[in-house]
């Protein structure tokens, strides 16, 4: 996972580059919570552009970060969902709660 913080707008972007399952999610969660607490961002964006696999562990990951971010006064969004990721999120209903955006991730 790559982390970028855009100071001016207080936006924290996590670009997930690993497969998301029960095994990988533990590390992602620890790292994300640490960075969210450190930067206290206004917006937290999880970028799924490079995610080649995700199972239900991804749902729990995003709901958990959504609650954590809200608790600290920020807003969470998910970006660049692949069709496979979108399908799993849609089944769980979390997209009724969490906005989906597109972002550009080069630079």
């Amino acid at each position, binding site marked *: 996972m790559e982390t970028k913080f855009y100071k001016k707008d207080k936006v924290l972007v996590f670009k997930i580059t690993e497969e998301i399952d029960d095994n990988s999610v533990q590390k992602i969660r620890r790292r994300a919570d640490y960075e969210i607490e450190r930067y206290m961002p206004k917006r937290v964006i999880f970028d799924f552009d490079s995610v080649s696999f995700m199972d239900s562990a991804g749902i*729990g990951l995003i709901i958990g970060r959504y609650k954590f971010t809200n608790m600290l006064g920020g807003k969470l969004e998910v970006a660049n969902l692949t069709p496979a990721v979108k399908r*799993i999120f849609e089944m769980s209903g979390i997209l009724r709660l969490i906005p989906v955006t597109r972002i550009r991730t080069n630079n």
Partner: protein
Amino acid sequence: MKSEFENEMKLEFISKSSNEAFARITVAAFASQLDPTIEELADIKTAVSEAVTNCIIHGYDNRQGIVKVVAKLKENEIIIEISDKGKGIENIEIAKEPLYTTKPNLERSGMGFTIMESFMDSMEVESIVGLGTKITMTKKIKPKEEETEEEFEMITKE
């Protein structure tokens, strides 16, 4: 001994979460013999990942045990059995309901069975409390459209 299946494989590994990727990639590689699309393969990988993860985190509660995966091919269908000798499920009907989870504190969402059911053609759960759980899933791989081969006549001009 001749099997009624065209091909069969069996995989056993200890219940470590780092084996989840190993299991789904291995089953997907085996399933490739049926010439599935990328989407069909992704469905199989996801369903296997769900079932194997359940054995590890629920069946064995993160204690050590053996997870067994059997895959069989018959005509254009793959049959996958994933089992543990863990704690078993008390009420299978309730467990299968979307959003039902006994581990919300571990950030589980209760969508595993729902995903298996919708990504595969069939999914059955057998479980005995104290003895273990076995999931059987099947998926038919759609035959590909025959590629129409264009025939060219060699015209040799003199």
